[in-house]
């Protein structure tokens, strides 16, 4: 006989119980064995109780008393130890199954068709995977242990009671059926009352919300009494509902206690009578009372387990229903085989894409593209050009007709074959958290992982990466990231020397022309584009507690601030920065890095400073705690007036800071020589970025033009010093932030284009891939397609700018889900058809 039921392959068809079968069955068996032992160990103390009273105490035998008490103790210790073991195993099995479910569900979600993600909210997917599945894990962990333990315990206790006295056993158990009838009835009423409580609560909430939104009207009409009356009516209703609900809850509790306490009453009455008549011994009565009391625990645990089961099955069913859906395409070939290499030919015959509601987005599209040919898809908005492109790379599934890549039916191809041969750049590409390099290699690494390739195999060289970065116009961005990085002292020493040489060459060649855009590190001037801390220290720390972020914990430095008359002024500045920033950003939902560029508060510190701002409103500055003082000074020392314009640097503070710089230098020289090396033109400035080091100053502007100009002059010097490649490598390690939010839209698109180019696929599908780029970058990509990729890769490009399509081999014009004309640009323009209309239309609608 087959014990294990059939478990469907499709995740969402699996039952909750199937996870018990696929859990760690070995551990479940061990658990069962432990449970059986535990139950025995739980019953033994009852027998010991009887023997202690009847034999040891009754016969006044001390030796028996010691022996039975010893057994009793051993049983109690063993029962506790075993209970711990059961819980540990139960927990392990549950968490293991939960992880298994999470992984399978995640893998399933990833393969669901695009139509699912159009409807699904990311929040629901997140909460399903993170929170809701937890119930299932808990259930699987308990599924064997709890019912078996408690049923066996119940049976064992009941059996023991029958063994002691069948009549009394029957009497004491007669109460359970009554409890089974009464308590669920009360529970039903409590549930109904609870529902009414929730409904009334919601109505009350709606009313409050309405009042707040309409507060203008209430004040204008002075309708306070009227509104209070309205609110009062609902509040009273809630009062009544809550009283009733609580009464039912208490009734359930009281009933439970009543039935539990009624047991001993019956036992005393009947047992006492029997004992007086000599038909029942005292030891047995004590054991009976104990067993009867203990019956309640497994009973309660079973009830709790039932609740866990209910909760788990509700959330499990909801999750599985939500994620119901089958992948539209095979993920990988059924039999493992090496990747196929396509020649790049694309054909489509009468391709139709119909969405629910009978709407056809593509109404029978036919297209032939030869290997290496470049096709531009153009058309009015909503004409289906993106839809067609997405059907050709399996992101969407066409519903009728045929489409083939190198003669292979796209419908039947596994996704891995498509990914091996097609590079896709979408209009809004997605950039993942990690470095630029991670993102550039994303497509390649996905294929390496799929084919089990490890080590360096299949990875492009640094030169190849840099070449592509240059081709797509990301070079300047990567260089900027590199120039904005800070070297740790003792690292990259060979580069450091070269940077100092570049600094001198730069000053000689361009120093004067950039004087307006750069604030040089001049010891006699206050630097508005450097922080207050940098202005004071004006050097490279040689001891860790002189590092910028550790200054507030440095007693020497704090003492100096005090003596220089700066401490209170800086705390005042810190307080202003805190209040201003919190006032501006307090209501911004989930602010990202961009919102913290113009304040010295960092994103992860915002909550701390929000709390501090609250305290600042109540407590005077000089009465703040030492920790709050530290927080304020931290901000003040980061304050950079040229960037953090929400607060002004007062001339008094500026003067004090400037004289403080000189005072600090004197103090260090006398009290802590060597703690700081003051900035000198011939040294590398470790706390500063590479760019600051080259300029021996800081750029005052964020204007891209000025930055480009400076960068161009730097590049040639970097090449002279043969360090460009190393610098770019540093730039490639730039962390792009969650969702790539530290990159602009244009940079993200360039990364996505480079990512597809690095893969060198025989087919490239570009869906408005250059829409976020400036004219020069668009032209650069266009030239690249025309020169580098011509004849090498088939290119199907959805184009919105018609001035870029002249050199495509073929232009396909789409309108209302159909290709209305195809031909070379010149042919179609001569024909004066749709393309002509598009190009010369009164409004650019492409």
């Amino acid at each position, binding site marked *: 006989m087959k014990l294990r039921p059939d478990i469907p392959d499709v995740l969402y068809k699996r039952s909750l119980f199937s996870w018990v079968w696929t859990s760690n069955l070995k551990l479940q068996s061990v658990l069962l064995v432990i449970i059986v032992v535990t139950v025995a160990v739980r019953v033994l103390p009852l027998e010991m109780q009887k023997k202690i009273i009847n034999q040891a105490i009754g016969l006044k035998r001390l030796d028996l008393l010691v022996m039975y008490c010893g057994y009793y103790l051993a049983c109690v210790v063993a029962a506790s130890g075993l209970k711990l073991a059961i819980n540990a195993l139960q927990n392990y099995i549950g968490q293991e199954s939960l992880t298994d479910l999470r992984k399978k569900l995640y893998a399933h979600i990833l393969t669901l068709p695009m139509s699912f993600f159009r409807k699904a909210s990311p929040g629901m997917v997140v909460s399903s995977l993170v929170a809701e599945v937890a119930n299932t894990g808990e259930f699987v962990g308990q599924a064997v242990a709890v019912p078996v333990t408690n049923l066996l315990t119940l049976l064992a206790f009941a059996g023991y009671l029958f063994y002691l006295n069948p009549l009394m056993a029957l009497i004491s158990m007669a109460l359970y059926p009554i409890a089974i009838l009464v308590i669920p009835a009360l529970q039903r009423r409590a549930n109904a009352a609870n529902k009414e409580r929730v409904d009334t609560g919601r109505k009350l909430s709606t009313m409050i919300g309405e009042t707040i939104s309409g507060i203008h009207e209430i004040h204008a009409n002075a309708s306070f009494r009227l509104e209070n009356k309205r609110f009062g009516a609902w509040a009273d209703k809630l009062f009544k509902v809550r009283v009733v609900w609580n009464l039912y809850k208490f009734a359930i509790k009281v009933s439970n206690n009543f039935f539990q306490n009624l047991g001993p009453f019956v036992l005393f009455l009947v047992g006492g009578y029997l004992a007086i008549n000599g038909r029942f011994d005292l030891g047995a009565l004590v054991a009976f009372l104990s067993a009867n009391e203990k019956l309640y625990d497994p009973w309660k645990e079973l009830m709790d387990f039932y609740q866990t089961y209910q909760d788990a099955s509700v959330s499990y069913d909801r999750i599985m229903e939500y994620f119901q859906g089958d992948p539209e395409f095979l993920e990988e070939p059924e039999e493992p085989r090496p990747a196929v290499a396509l020649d790049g030919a694309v054909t489509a015959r009468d391709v139709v894409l119909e969405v629910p509601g009978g709407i056809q987005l593509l109404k029978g599209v036919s297209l032939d593209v030869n290997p290496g040919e470049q096709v531009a898809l153009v058309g009015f908005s909503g004409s289906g050009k993106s839809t067609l492109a997405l059907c050709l790379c399996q992101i969407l599934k066409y519903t009728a007709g045929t489409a083939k890549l190198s003669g292979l039916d796209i419908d039947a191809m596994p996704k891995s074959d498509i990914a091996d041969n097609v590079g896709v750049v979408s209009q809004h590409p997605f950039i993942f958290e990690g470095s630029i390099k991670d993102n550039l290699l994303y497509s390649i690494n996905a294929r390496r992982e799929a084919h089990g390739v490890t080590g360096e195999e299949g990875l492009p060289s640094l030169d190849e990466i840099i070449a592509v970065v240059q081709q797509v116009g990301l070079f300047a961005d990567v260089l900027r990231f590199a120039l904005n990085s800070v070297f740790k002292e003792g690292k990259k020493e060979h580069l450091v020397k070269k940077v100092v040489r570049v600094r001198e060459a730069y000053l000689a060649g361009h120093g004067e022309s950039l004087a307006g855009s750069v604030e040089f590190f001049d010891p006699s001037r206050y630097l508005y584009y450097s922080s207050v801390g940098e202005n004071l220290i004006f050097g490279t720390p040689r001891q860790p507690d002189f590092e910028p972020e550790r200054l507030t914990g440095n007693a020497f430095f704090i003492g100096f601030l005090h003596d220089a008359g700066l401490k209170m002024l800086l705390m005042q500045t810190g307080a202003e920065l805190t209040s201003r920033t919190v006032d501006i950003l307090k209501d911004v939902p989930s602010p990202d890095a961009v919102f913290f560029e113009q304040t010295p508060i960092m994103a992860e510190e915002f909550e701390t400073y929000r709390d501090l701002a609250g305290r600042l409103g109540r407590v005077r500055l000089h009465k703040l705690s030492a920790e709050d003082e530290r927080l304020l000074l931290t901000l003040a020392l980061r304050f950079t007036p040229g960037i953090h314009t929400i607060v*002004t640097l007062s001339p008094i503070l500026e003067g004090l800071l400037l004289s403080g710089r000189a005072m600090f230098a004197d103090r260090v020289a006398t009290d802590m020589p060597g703690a700081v090396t003051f900035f000198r033109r011939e040294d590398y400035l470790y706390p500063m970025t590479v760019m600051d080091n080259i300029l021996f100053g800081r750029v005052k502007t964020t204007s891209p033009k000025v930055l480009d100009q400076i960068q161009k002059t730097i590049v040639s010097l970097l090449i002279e010093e043969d360090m460009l490649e190393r610098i770019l490598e540093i730039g490639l390690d730039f962390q792009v932030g969650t969702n790539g939010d530290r990159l602009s839209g244009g940079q993200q698109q360039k990364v996505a284009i480079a990512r597809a180019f690095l893969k060198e696929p025989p087919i490239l599908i570009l869906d408005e891939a250059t829409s*976020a780029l400036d004219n020069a970058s668009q032209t650069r990509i266009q030239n690249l397609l025309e020169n580098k990729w011509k004849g090498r890769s088939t290119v199907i490009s959805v184009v919105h700018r018609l001035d870029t399509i002249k050199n495509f081999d073929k232009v396909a014009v789409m309108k209302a889900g159909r290709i209305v004309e195809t031909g070379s640009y010149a042919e179609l323009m001569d024909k004066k058809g749709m393309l002509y209309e598009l190009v010369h239309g009164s409004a650019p609608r492409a």
Partner: protein
Amino acid sequence: MSLSTDQPQGLKSCGFNECLDILRELPVFSGVPLDVIKVLAYLSGRETFDAGEALCEQGEALDRCFYVLSGEVAMDRRIGDCAVTLPRRGPGQFFGGLGLLAPAKALFSVHAVADAECLVLTKEKFQKTAERFPDVWPKILGNVVGHVFRWEEAFLAAHAKECAETGEMGLSLF
């Protein structure tokens, strides 16, 4: 050691409050709650442009808006070889607001004719803010539509005859 005397202009006054006042009075942000304007003012920056320097170029993406604080700018549009130049504008001139709302290419080039300082808000920062306060969209859209109708009404009144001759429908029927 002496006090610095060449403190940048923007550092002398509290840039934020001034910026807040300017943005509050811009028609495109009319009706936008003060809390959101505060965020936009905070995210705006000052940029200086030397005489002759371009603020934006015709045909390039219009991805920031400008408010001229000081100096003078000139706007021109090149049609083939011919350039149409608009009168010079000075402090108080605002342009580029529409570019914040959706991808657009500048139809004009704007150059500084005298050293100019501008308040600049980039599209990226505006969009990030608007994403977080979606309630501002209907207000801004209302302002834009209102402006289009007012502008067209004035235009039609001034050029009624030419419009009738060319059959141009204008924007308000879009």
